[in-house]
């Protein structure tokens, strides 16, 4: 499903080259102070990603709505400026359940009309990447990498993917990470070579598939001003938002402090642990598949060699009898040696295991501190 969906999304990408060229001819006089930061050819590499408050709240909303089975997926809209990719808006993509031509077409149509609609209300309308939700930091999925690989070819500046952790967000500490595929992975992806040879050639491990780009979060002054009035206690009036009771009652004047991080419940750790185990199981299965395929290859190879051997002996016999030798090159026709299996999946699974156990270790250390602090409070009370 993922491949074709990615392809459809990519197919409906606007071609970025044409408007860039047009801009060059129409606006000839770029002020000298700006000439350094405006890059028509997209030459300045992106060093930071800037998320607008709107995008933050939109992704958080979308992420908190979806079930675990299918991650929230959406497109990011914005512009790149002097090495900073400013993401000003985003919209979610519908969940395409089945992989037929029709749903893909409707997805492309959806995307095109959404962009048109955004353009009509003066919003940015250039796709710069996409976002995806995940749980516990394990975002290595073939679909994600494929989509990003296509983006990186199609979109100006290559595009980025924003990864948002739903589980962490539900604990009150949402995080956003921006990633881009590394050059080596892209080379391997273009060649479609993920067998052992390909991995060795490009020196690919799960940690060298993506590179992270620092993320900044920006609240525009208007939203900032509005937020700060929301968080300062206001004189009580019956119907205004700023007077909603729990906001005004807090003495510090900010949003009431959240203490969800003090929750002693270790359920999240258990869930994390079981997801590690699941990932390990998946990996084991994948490993078994690989081993099976390897054995099959070896068997087929052996058969082919035996065949050649026999043919040679037969030919030698025929030549000695004065007959024309039988051809030796029909082996490839008779025996189909399966190609070496792709190791991408198992590498990605390893990456998932790594991510899961990383967040597990993290959660455990936090839990440790929590237990001690609770115990400290307890002994102080006693």
């Amino acid at each position, binding site marked *: 499903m993922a491949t074709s969906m990615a392809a459809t999304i990519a197919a409906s990408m606007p071609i970025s080259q044409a408007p860039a060229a047009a801009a060059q001819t129409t606006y000839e006089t770029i002020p000298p102070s700006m000439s350094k930061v405006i890059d028509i050819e997209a030459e300045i590499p992106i060093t930071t990603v800037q998320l607008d408050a709107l995008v933050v709240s939109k992704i958080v909303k979308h992420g908190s709505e979806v079930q675990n089975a299918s991650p929230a997926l959406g497109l990011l809209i914005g512009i790149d400026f002097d090495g900073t990719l400013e993401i000003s808006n985003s919209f979610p993509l519908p969940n395409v359940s089945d992989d037929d031509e029709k749903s893909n077409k409707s997805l492309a149509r959806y995307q095109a009309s959404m962009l048109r609609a955004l353009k009509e209300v003066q919003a940015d309308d250039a796709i710069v990447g996409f976002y995806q939700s995940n749980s516990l930091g394990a975002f290595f999925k073939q679909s994600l990498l494929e989509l990003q690989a296509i983006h990186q070819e199609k979109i100006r500046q290559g595009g980025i993917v924003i990864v948002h952790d739903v589980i962490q967000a539900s604990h009150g500490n949402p995080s956003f990470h921006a990633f881009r595929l590394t050059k080596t992975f892209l080379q391997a992806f273009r060649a479609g070579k993920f067998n052992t040879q390909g991995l060795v050639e490009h020196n690919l491990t799960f940690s060298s598939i993506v590179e992270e780009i620092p993320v900044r979060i920006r609240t525009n002054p*208007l939203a900032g001003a509005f937020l700060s009035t929301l968080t300062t206690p206001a004189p009580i009036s019956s119907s205004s*938002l700023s007077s909603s009771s729990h906001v005004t009652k807090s003495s510090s004047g900010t949003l009431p402090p959240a203490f*969800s991080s003090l929750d002693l419940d270790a359920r999240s*750790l258990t869930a994390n642990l079981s997801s590690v185990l699941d990932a390990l199981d998946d990996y084991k299965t994948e490993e078994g598949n690989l081993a099976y395929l390897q054995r099959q290859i070896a068997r087929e190879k052996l058969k082919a060699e035996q065949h050649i051997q026999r043919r040679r002996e037969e030919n030698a016999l025929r030549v000695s009898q004065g007959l024309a030798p039988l051809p030796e090159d029909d082996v490839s026709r008779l025996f189909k040696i399966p190609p070496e299996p792709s190791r991408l999946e198992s590498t990605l699974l390893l990456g998932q*295991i790594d991510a899961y156990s990383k967040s597990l270790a993290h959660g*455990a250390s936090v839990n440790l*501190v929590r237990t001690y602090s609770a115990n400290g409070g307890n002994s102080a009370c006693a």
Partner: protein
Amino acid sequence: MPIGQTSSALNLQNLNSGTISNPTRSIQNVIVHPVVLFNILDHYLRRKDSQERVIGTLLGTRTETEIEVHNCFAVLHSETTEQVAVDQDYHRTVYDLHHKVHPKEIIVGWYSTGSNLNTYSALIQYFYSQETAPHPAVHITLNTGTEEGGEPGVKAFLSSPVGVYPKPENCVFVPIPCELRFNNSERGGLDILTKSLSSTSPSITNALSDIEVLERSVQMVSEMLDRVLSYVRSVIAGEIKGDPAIGRYLLETFAMSTEGLDQGSFARSLQDTLMISYLANLIRSQAEVSTRLQLVTS
């Protein structure tokens, strides 16, 4: 959605009771999620110079007594001294698009910026009541606070027709309570946004680690304990008169001790946690070794 026949009888019923299907109940509360506010503010920033205000459609869910606004989108409209026009095609198209992603969210009303309610508001409200029929449409005004004398804030209204013969351009906007609500993750999202307010730079780098968040929470708790302690001490010393309500509240709070966490279970949970931590690190190194081994050919 069928456009309801607007007779005066129906309007009268609307006036007293919120919906036709539940004639006894009326909408008592409007709940707004943070994403709606940011959307409206963003739309306001992107308005044309000629536009006084911007309007858009509110999407959400409704129960018998509450309307929960989850989402919204901008709608094109134009206002001149003679007429007002809402791009209905645009509204339909974008609503259909939204419907594909969030099938549960339906049109519940509309928003506009500024707190000016005029004849045009009534006309637009009339249009949206047709969209939400037979339920009433809610109108949310968001004052951005950029105009002189305007207090930033959000107000919600329901409308009732007025006059002997109900006309679209005549209606009374009845204010109803409006509340900002967020779930745990939205709360966290707001937190990182409000953090940027206190820092001097306009932008902040994101992602505090969990442990830092925990540290801040623990610090906050200890500060609160200090405050309580100093208060209690000064009450005991007779410096200030104790407030019985506060006293009772404190008693209740401290009675909820962590009794389950006695010495035995503390040690147990400590062991568990350490075990998990050990396991996690072990798995990580195994994974690392495994991926390196893949690169080794025989």
